[in-house]
């Protein structure tokens, strides 16, 4: 055995282009969201110019039909989007991963019951769920929207976790680890979670984007954040009536929304590849 045989050809962990773009898009969103906590170009609640002004040096994206600065609204929308996406995914991930792992360990009968229940929950319309949550909490707020979206996500995450965890639990290295005395909780923490994380994290990014989009629909129906919380979804809906006279009002929040969703997906994809030691080998 020569030293040559031992050289470990691990590909350099170079950041891919996708990862860089993802980082930039998401980073910009976070930066803007943080900035709005201290400063916005104009007062978001009061008119700062004429109605439906076209973009100008004073109002880069123009004004809405109440004369409020659009850029200010979009910047605050970035904050709302982050809160909604992060909150909904955090709730969905916590509940979903826990349930999914439990289902993976459950006896045959219990597992079947859980699988069927999850399928029903996933088919249950998010909108209806949101209405129920709002009804249960008396009033629509950003938080009721986040809770509803989080619950909807948790069913999807639970189903995915269950399938992924079962696949990992069948692997030889689980038995090998068990023979050396690793307990079930140890197996979950040391082997199952790390091995399902690459797939889960990409799904979380997807759910993040869907949550931000879904919040827009909920806002439109009065089930999301009430004014004055600007959300891109509400901006889009408000711009509907004036889309021909002032198209920028619809285009700008749309671009912001798409940019964040794409950024999130690129980031998750890129991080998964960087975090995967088997990358560069056949997968």
């Amino acid at each position: 055995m020569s030293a040559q045989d031992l050289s470990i050809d691990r590909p350099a962990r170079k950041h891919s282009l996708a990862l860089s773009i993802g980082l930039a898009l998401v980073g910009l969103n976070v930066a803007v969201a943080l900035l709005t906590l201290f400063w916005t170009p104009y007062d978001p609640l009061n008119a700062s110019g004429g109605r439906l002004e076209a973009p100008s040096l004073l109002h880069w994206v123009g004004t809405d039909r109440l004369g409020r600065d659009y850029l200010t609204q979009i910047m605050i929308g970035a904050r709302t989007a982050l809160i909604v996406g992060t909150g909904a995914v955090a709730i969905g991930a916590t509940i979903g991963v826990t349930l999914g792992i439990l289902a993976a360990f459950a006896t045959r009968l219990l597992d079947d019951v859980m699988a069927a229940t999850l399928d029903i929950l996933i088919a249950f319309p998010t909108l209806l769920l949101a209405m129920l949550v709002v009804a249960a909490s008396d009033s629509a707020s950003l938080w009721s929207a986040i809770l509803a979206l989080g619950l909807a996500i948790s069913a999807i995450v639970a189903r995915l976790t269950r399938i992924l965890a079962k696949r990992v639990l069948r692997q030889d290295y689980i038995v090998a680890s068990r023979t050396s005395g690793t307990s079930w909780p140890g197996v979950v923490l040391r082997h199952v979670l790390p091995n399902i994380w690459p797939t889960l994290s990409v799904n979380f990014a997807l759910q993040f984007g869907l949550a931000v989009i879904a919040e827009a629909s909920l806002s439109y129906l009065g089930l999301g954040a009430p004014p004055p919380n600007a959300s891109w979804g509400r901006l889009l809906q408000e711009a509907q009536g004036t889309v021909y006279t002032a198209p920028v009002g619809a285009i700008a929040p749309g671009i912001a929304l798409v940019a964040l969703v794409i950024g999130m997906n690129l980031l998750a994809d890129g991080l998964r590849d960087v975090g995967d030691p088997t990358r560069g080998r056949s997968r």
Partner: protein
Amino acid sequence: MSALLSVQGLTVRAGDKTLVSDLSFSIGAGERMGLIGESGSGKSMTAMAVTGLLPANISVSGSIVLDGQEVVGADEKHLNRLRGVATAVVFQEPLTALDPLMKIGKQIAEPVRRRLARDGQRPSRAAIDREVLDLLDKVALPQSERIANAYPHEVSGGQRQRVAIAMALACRPRLLIADEPTTALDVTTQAEILRLLDGLVRETGMALLFISHDLPVVAQVVERVMVLRDGVALEEGAVVDVFASPSHDYTRTLVDAARMFDEALGGTGS
């Protein structure tokens, strides 16, 4: 003194199919025993029954007393106290027996940490790391730091099996179960791993249950063998006796096959 492992009337069933039937044997402390038989004869089932890790669809009856404790019907808590303490296992396929996403050093560190904790220590990272490197040295892996930092797919098959042996040694078990540890390796590596196992077992004084379908391989490392076919023990005895004068046709075929294989290779066997 009673045996380290005492198996009495072990029967393993999957549904109404009997995989192992009425098997009895025992292994004393420091003793080396072989279990041979062709593929599908129930060798792995027997090994997994000893660790209490048979799949859920499989039922066990009889008695397995390991280190003074009954394994059959014992609950997880008791079994977990035996696993890694009384026994450790080296498997056939070293690639799949290692977690692909965990560095090798970390995989070995866990049983080390557990053993030190069991001995009432609160081991420091440095102490664990030192022992991991020692173990890698012990299984003759050069550049141990480099191996510790590698992922399983980054080292060769033979090196992976050495890592798996290091993981088993990390437990300092009283009985090492090696389930076809050389079957997945090429002939040269096979010989190296056998020599390594043989040396380590002698050095540490642990008992060995060596499983293989390959007679010459078994003969190199054990004192006593048991021949298994379709889950039934055909004969048992000292290696020299069983191989020199097999009392059963099935054993004779195994011996003949091994001889013919040896002759074909130019008689380089043991």
